[in-house]
């Protein structure tokens, strides 16, 4: 079984512009069931073989969509998420980068009142290798197998998936949760899904500086962990007070340091790689040591 994404996924596209259309084609190619797109004003027409709808609610009613992916530009993206929540889309994946923080505060408040799961924003999406992908990741780096993988970074996810794949370590689900300070599915929640997934045998947790989601994930695994985990933290050498590309990747005062995260994982008995290249070895060791 894969987590959050799989053969059951019926995907709706929110924002079928140039970028959205490009990635939609890749997702369909990969085998994802894409049922349509919401494009206000174009309802009733067809684009790239997909039926278009004026509203998400209409699209859900007509197609039974249970998942959506959002490519809407930043100024309208929070609204697109809220529309998806309102239409009771079960899994909402927001690719968009640059959503205002206060918009996201409103979104997460509504999210907490809903039964939906939000992945992102500012994320590459998620993939169940061999089955379906909801995102923009280059699929060729991923392969099917026992590793559950959660990451705050995009390209780093591809790099590590590639390393794992080349080492013969396929993945159940890879969840790119996004690099923003306020996201729908923070590390501990994503880890919980993988921990509860019977097919996942080992969890790889890729964090980065900023916030304390990794510390909370470590704490969760220390208490409830059913399987081994391996961690990696990007930004160990980053100075305090500087935002490292991601809006969320910043050490503020004493908070959000790599040292604190590494210490938390180690306290939970989770080995921490010092470079991505070490991850496959640690994963193999973890699988062997079960």
């Amino acid at each position, binding site marked *: 079984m894969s987590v959050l994404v799989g053969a059951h996924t019926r995907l709706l596209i929110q924002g079928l512009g140039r970028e959205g259309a490009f990635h939609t084609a890749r997702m369909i190619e990969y085998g994802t069931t894409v049922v349509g797109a919401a494009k206000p004003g174009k309802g009733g027409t067809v684009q790239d073989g997909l039926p278009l709808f004026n509203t998400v609610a209409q699209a859900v009613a007509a197609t039974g969509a249970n998942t959506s992916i959002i490519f809407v530009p930043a100024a309208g993206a929070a609204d697109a998420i809220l529309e998806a929540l309102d239409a009771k889309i079960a899994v909402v994946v927001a690719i968009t980068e640059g959503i205002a923080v206060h918009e996201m505060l409103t979104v997460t408040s509504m999210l907490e009142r809903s039964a939906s799961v939000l992945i992102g924003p500012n994320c590459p999406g998620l993939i169940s290798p061999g089955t379906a992908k909801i995102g923009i990741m280059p699929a060729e780096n991923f392969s099917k197998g026992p590793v559950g993988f959660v990451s705050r970074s995009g390209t780093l996810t591809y790099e590590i998936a590639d390393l794992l794949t080349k080492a013969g370590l396929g993945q159940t689900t890879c969840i790119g949760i996004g690099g923003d300070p306020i996201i729908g599915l923070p590390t501990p929640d994503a880890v919980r899904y993988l921990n509860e997934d019977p097919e996942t045998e080992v969890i790889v947790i890729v964090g980065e500086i900023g916030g304390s989601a990794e510390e909370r994930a470590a704490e969760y695994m220390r208490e409830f962990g059913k399987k081994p985990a391996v961690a990696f933290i990007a930004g160990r050498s980053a100075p305090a007070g500087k935002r490292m590309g991601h809006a*969320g990747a910043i050490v503020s005062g004493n908070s959000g340091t790599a040292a604190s995260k590494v210490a938390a994982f180690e306290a939970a008995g989770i080995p921490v790689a010092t470079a991505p290249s070490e991850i496959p070895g640690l994963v193999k060791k973890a699988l062997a040591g079960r």
Partner: protein
Amino acid sequence: MKLHEFQAKQVLARAGVAIPEGRTATTPEEVEAAAIALGLPVVVKAQVHVGGRGKAGGVKLAKTAAEAKAHAMAILGMDIKGLTVRTIYVERAAKIAKELYLGITIDRDRRRAVVMLSTVGGMDIEEVAATQPGKIARSWPDPTLGLRAYAARALCFEAGVPEAQRDAVAGIARQLYDVFRATDAMTIEINPLFIQEDGTVVAGDAKLEVDDNAMYRQPELATYKEIAPDEEQEERAKALGFSYVQLDGTVGIIGNGAGLVMSTLDAVKNAGGSAANFLDVGGGAKESVVKAALEIVLANPRVKAIFINIFGGITRGDEVAKGILAVLRDTKPKVPLVIRLSGTEAEAGRALLEGAPLVSRTTMDEAAAEAVRLAT
């Protein structure tokens, strides 16, 4: 984006928060005139986008207009943490009985704003948090509800605000929260919040930092934008579509994806070197972007070697190679380049770079080691 104290105070005053009367000035003569107009004593304050201006001598009390002018002469042109003071805010001095702290910021873990109130005012709040954590009362309003009266009152009780000022401080907390939401603030602070001898409450200082991602809907605040000299390169990079942070080391870094670039910095450090910058060309960078990125890194005189680390996804290896070749052709860089190309079209890229004056490596670790060796 940071606002100056006087700008933040204007925003607060419009929301109903009491502030001491004040004026901006850019010459000693204007400061003198403002002091006379406002009534003495006054406080003469450097307006710079940096903390710690008080300790740096940028805030002075003046009992006479002549003294105000003299302070202005000392402060104008002063260098505070690399920033030159060009504007002064002259303010009628408050009659201070007590100093409080009131601030709001984003609590990432709770995904809420956190309102903080403390009777230990005038100090850096992180210092108070570290040394007297029990002295900060906190409240996390639901963004869809706001800071209700009961919650603001509870904050005052918890912080130990004197009874005579409780309603006033609770009211200011609610006004501050409304400003926080209305301005898309990342942080807003009144520190110190003065209780004056006559019992009234006024904002002693004001700090307001606005979310850069929200500037599209803050047109008025956007006009306050100032770029400090040390931010110019970062701003230029942003305009070109990539993100750049200047660091202290000698190995220039270019990569795609924030996490990968951070890891590249770490790899350089693991190899015994230090990064000169963080530079993420973003997803799907074209030749021209790669070229511009390389030029920015080359412009840094501290850079002794450059490490280009690309894991192709949406970004294509051949586009990256073309950008590099364009720079090699046009500017003939004097520092060595190490490249590691992987992922989409990596082979095509490597083929294009065949014979070019640069070092190619297969893994991130190897490439980092080579770049560090070349920079030493």
